[in-house]
């Protein structure tokens, strides 16, 4: 029994079942934000591991490493080619990208630096320690880029991964309200760039509902912010002494 669980197929199977279950419930609940497939799979996956670890009389961390991680790592590896493939939507949006690349890079770089400052202030205000703050800085990038950067500046990559997932959950849940409250749609380019930065691919899908300019800008931002985070965050972390 234990031998069967300690093979990659357990982690792959658990991930698949939970994600598909999440998709089904998400559809049944007519898109309630709590049931976003990824968020659902994260919460119930951790819950399942906690319960199973009790049954196998080990602690959760050991059970995760022995039973889930072998399969999880195989799925995780495919984020590498999938992230590289983001060059394709960027290439397909070449007309807007080439027309506005100066605005895009300037907005994302300056926006990132200001946001990082604000994030550090908020983190210190609630009393996060150094590791916690470092884990918060790279969350704007897509997971495959955010995690290695987070590790490199002394953060905890699991916490950063949670941040990336929660970003998308929050934008899905509150995106419409936030756009209205802050009148973001007055500048379609700005709304698109903001949604792509804060909400990753989910934000990009939501931006497309606002309009084609917003959708294109968000799709570009999801890719470009990864490059911006890669350059800005390590320098910023070094400067504030993390």
């Amino acid at each position: 029994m234990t031998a069967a669980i300690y093979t990659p197929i357990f982690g792959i199977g658990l991930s698949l079942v939970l994600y598909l279950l999440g998709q089904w419930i998400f559809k049944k609940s007519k898109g309630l934000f709590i049931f976003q497939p990824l968020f659902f799979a994260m919460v119930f996956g951790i819950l399942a591991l906690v319960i199973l670890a009790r049954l196998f009389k080990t602690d959760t961390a050991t059970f995760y490493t022995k039973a889930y991680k072998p399969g999880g790592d195989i799925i995780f590896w495919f984020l590498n080619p999938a992230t590289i493939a983001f060059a394709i939507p960027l290439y397909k949006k070449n007309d807007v990208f080439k027309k506005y690349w100066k605005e895009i890079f300037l907005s994302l770089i300056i926006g990132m630096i200001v946001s990082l400052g604000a994030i550090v202030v908020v983190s210190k205000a609630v009393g996060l320690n150094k590791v916690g703050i470092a884990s918060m800085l790279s969350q704007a990038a897509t997971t495959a880029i955010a995690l290695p950067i987070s590790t490199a500046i002394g953060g905890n990559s699991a916490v950063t991964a949670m941040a990336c997932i929660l970003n998308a959950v929050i934008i899905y849940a509150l995106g419409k309200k936030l756009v209205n409250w802050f009148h973001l749609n007055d500048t379609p380019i700005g709304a698109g760039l903001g949604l792509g930065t804060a909400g990753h691919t989910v934000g990009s899908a939501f931006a497309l509902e606002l309009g084609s300019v917003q959708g294109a800008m968000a799709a570009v931002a999801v890719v470009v912010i990864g490059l911006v985070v890669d350059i800005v965050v390590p320098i910023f972390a070094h400067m504030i002494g993390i």
Partner: protein
Amino acid sequence: MNNDKQKTKAAPILAQMAIYASILFVSNVISSLMPSSFPVPTPVIGLILLYMLLNFKIIKLAWVDSLGTFLISLIGFLFVPSGISLAANLNIMATEGIQLVIVIALSTIIMLVVTAYTARTIIAFKKHLQETRNKTRNTKVQVTVSHAKGGN
């Protein structure tokens, strides 16, 4: 993009895999050469490489499109293990969980609003620059026109 690109047949899936594998391998080598003080993850290099290869028409879109689009369509699922990796760090969640969630929620709003407003400011500034430039150009044109008239 243009029509003839869409008409070209998609490359066989194994050939597409070979292209992604080669790009990954090269990116991995470049990434390992980067200094540890300036880490550049493999996917970042691969993304830039593939974008440049497409832009310089060394690789045709049809050679990488269907596998890439398929991989991107899976991205939500591919994130599941990184989310579940929190199971190995539940002690952090027990001690700092609430603070972390507060910071993440506020960070999301900060990034959305700050980026959008920065873009708005930059676009407004650029428009302002263009208008002033147009004004000076218009006055110059008027001057040359009046000169031409005076000459006649």
